[in-house]
């Protein structure tokens, strides 16, 4: 990743918009470039070193209320022309929709510190040294470490530009660094692993010694895990587990999903959908947030939006089209998931607002309390349409002063019911690379299946 600014791709953008104008269609070009490096260490040696540059241009064409898409990774003039032609041909397959269209977003966009020239200038030697230090720290943290896989450092420099025939033309650059390590520890017959991932906008914020030791500590504390009998019981989700669960169900807050008849929140605006302890905000302007951005994927300036306030559902996240359909205004959450995707609605930094209680207070609420620290299999065991989930989990049982690891159980329930059953929200907020930030959350009852 070099520190030099990527080209603005003026010629490519101009060519696409001119081709659209020549065809008498409205068009929007979404250009994404991502330069990244990654160092992966195995057993004290660099295993893979990856240098990448990905770029692509997505075209959205609107013709008489019909929207069509195309993308290309080749920036050759004929490939750009073809993308416009393909998008126009695809638009012809749709029926006209009075709410389809491009908007001429003109309001100023906020200044966000997303680009860090120091991170972009970190030398290859320092990246390699980081990954080696991380691997060494994990190997040396405990005698029970059996293997360490995936000790990695990576960073990226991304560039996004949105420009349309309606006069929108906005761009930004962002840098991000990340590191990951996955130790495996063994004691007797039992093996435990944990993958620790941390992201940062500044190289110095990532600490290889701490990460290596912390990942091993989280493995070791799971050794000696017991199986537990099933039943219905209160559960404290640690921040990482709740973030994973929330991320899986975040689409229920999308107006796009709601208009497709796939969210059970339709018609519930203003009503209580969660316990009064629960407030949820999507904040694309969060300082240092990993999903912060000055504007959304159709160029609308970012702003914070409250989804749930003290349990009441305030309103869906919108892009301009879903907003027109609902006779509402866009919240600036248009998301196309990169140049290959189509315009939908997506979250940025999804934040569960902290409550008054410490994690200890949540855990000591009952005689016996199950703390879930990790859930697995979310892509299959959780369904955002029905809200049902049934997930493999790991964690700790708290009984008085005793705390012991537990494993090989599942936690099952329904996301909508879970929101209503939130008893307390902690104040131990953690931020994750996905942009989700949440403290621990106590849910009054969930079904557990164990031995």
């Amino acid at each position: 990743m070099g520190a030099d600014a990527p080209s603005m791709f003026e010629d490519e953008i101009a060519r696409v918009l001119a081709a659209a104008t020549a065809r008498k269609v409205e068009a929007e070009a979404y250009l994404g470039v991502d330069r990244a490096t990654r160092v992966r260490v195995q057993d004290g040696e660099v295993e893979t070193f990856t240098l990448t540059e990905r770029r692509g241009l997505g075209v959205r064409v609107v013709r008489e209320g019909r929207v069509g898409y195309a993308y290309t990774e080749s920036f050759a003039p004929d490939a750009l022309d073809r993308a416009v032609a393909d998008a126009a041909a695809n638009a012809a397959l749709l029926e006209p929709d009075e709410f389809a269209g491009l908007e001429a977003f003109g309001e100023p966009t906020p200044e966000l510190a997303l680009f860090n020239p120091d991170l972009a200038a970190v030398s290859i030697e320092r990246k390699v040294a980081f990954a080696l230090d991380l691997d060494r720290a994990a190997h040396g943290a405990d005698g029970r470490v059996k293997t360490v896989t995936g000790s990695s450092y990576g960073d990226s420099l991304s560039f996004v530009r949105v420009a349309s025939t309606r006069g929108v033309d906005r761009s930004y650059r962002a840098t991000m660094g990340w590191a990951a390590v996955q130790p495996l520890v063994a004691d007797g017959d039992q093996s435990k692993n944990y993958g620790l991932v941390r992201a940062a906008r500044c190289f110095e914020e990532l600490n290889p010694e701490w990460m290596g030791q912390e990942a091993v500590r989280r493995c070791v504390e799971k050794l000696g895990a017991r199986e537990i009998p099933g039943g219905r019981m209160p559960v404290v989700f640690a921040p990482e587990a709740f973030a994973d669960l929330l991320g899986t169900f975040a689409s229920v807050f999308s107006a796009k999903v709601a208009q497709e008849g796939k969210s059970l929140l339709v018609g519930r605006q203003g009503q209580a959908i969660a316990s009064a302890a629960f407030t949820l905000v999507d904040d694309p302007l969060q300082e240092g947030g990993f999903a912060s951005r000055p504007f959304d994927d159709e160029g609308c300036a970012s702003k914070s939006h409250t989804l749930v306030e003290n349990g009441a559902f305030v309103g869906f996240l919108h892009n301009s089209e879903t907003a027109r359909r609902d006779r509402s205004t866009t919240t600036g959450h248009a998301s196309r998931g990169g140049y290959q995707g189509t315009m939908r609605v997506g979250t940025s930094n999804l934040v569960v607002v902290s409550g008054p209680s410490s994690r200890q207070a949540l855990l000591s609420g009952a005689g016996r309390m199950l703390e879930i620290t990790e859930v697995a299999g979310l892509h299959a065991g959780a369904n955002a349409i029905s809200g049902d989930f049934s997930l493999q989990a790991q964690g700790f049982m708290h009984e008085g002063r005793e705390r012991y690891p537990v494993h090989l159980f599942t936690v099952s329930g329904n996301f909508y019911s879970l929101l209503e059953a939130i008893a307390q929200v902690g104040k131990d907020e953690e931020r994750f690379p996905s942009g989700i930030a949440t403290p621990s959350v106590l849910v009054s009852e969930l079904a557990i299946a164990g031995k």
Partner: protein
Amino acid sequence: MIERQQVSSGTWQPPVDPAVAQDVIADAMSSGADFAEIFVEERPTSRLMFLDGKVEDAVSGQSLGAGIRVIHGQRAVYGYTSDLSRAGLLAVAQSVAAAHKRSGQGDPAALVAAEPAPRLARIYPQDVPSERRIELALKADRAARRFHEAIAQVEVSITESVQRVLIANSEGLFITDERPYSRFFVQAIARSGSQQQVCARSPGRMAGFEFFDDLDVEELARDAADSAVRMLAADYAPAARMPVVIDKGFGGVIFHEACGHLLETTAVAPKASILADKLGERIAHEAVTAIDDGTLAGEWGSSAIDDEGMPTQRTVLIDKGRLVSYMVDRLGELKTGYRRTGSGRRESYRFAPASRMRNTFIAPGEASIEELIGGVRFGLYARRMGGGSVSPGTGDFNFSVREAFLIRDGKIAEPVRGATLIGNGADILKKISRVGKDLELATGMCGSISGTVPVDVGEPPILVDEITVGGR
């Protein structure tokens, strides 16, 4: 060195010619690498999505790029770019060369063009008017809605792509391959009061548009609708450990997660798999023979060559309970000494290859499904499965059941909603005690270190003596 006109690849002219490939390989090896390889990919894709009986989104696109890999001993450096000009490729080759220096030979062999495999698509996507696809989608939409009044929404999508790859390496290989992918997806949502249940069917094949011509989309739509409606009325599955009969087809996901990933050298080489160093050992019940086969004609996970240019093969993994092979890619061979099995795969040029599954299944046994169910006093009959995941280091895995029935006194009883089934691979392989006779493969997408690749999972019906059912 070969002349451009000698390279035969049907109608596809690779965007990188042999002279450039030769120079790229030479530059990539210039700092003393043992091996260098270039993987060039061109992939037109089109996707039509239908909702409310109308076209919701139409997208077409063109992916284009190249990945360059060099290997020094057991280390790899990988770089990729979408800039396929000679200058763009040489810049990446020089970067990967500069990232690691060694005093190796760095002397590549001259490229010799290999004969590409016969073309698999009879009808290419671009030769079919979109009206045909819209017709298919409408048929499916109507069939699902007519099936039951509770069907509130139907989503259909048709995704087609043709992946064309060129693989050239310092051993003189220069080979192309064309892989057409066609997939149909139909999802029915049933609603009643504040309840919604959903079921999808999504078959795919390595074939051109002819795949859709042979497909009964109405039957698929009715099948999805039937399941969604049934689950609306069903109670939740119980939370307990019990025997489970897992039906044929996508049920094979249990083997894919509980065992398959543990046999990839990606996990085996760093000893991050509980099945490392177990070759020749009895790891499963003797009823279990399992195969990973990349050669099955037209199957979703097949290909003539793997993404390192090696012909794919049929690899017996477990023979009557005994572990007989791992799945091995080039780096895996360098690290473990096991011979390559044509298992080097990647999602696209944006990923370095890794050892991956292709079409993985449990071989058929003798029993009928009635016999399997008949032997269970109280348990679960898992009819339709979702995906799953595994942690190879511990062997703990999960997979989801989407539609199930209780088994009472050897007979199928009331339907219950899906639940996640969990266990440990080492343990569960010994508990697959009976295997049925009716093998079926099913289409899936598998995500791992080298991206998301198409795979089949499969099995005949099987009986697992005991597994944790994560119901309520």
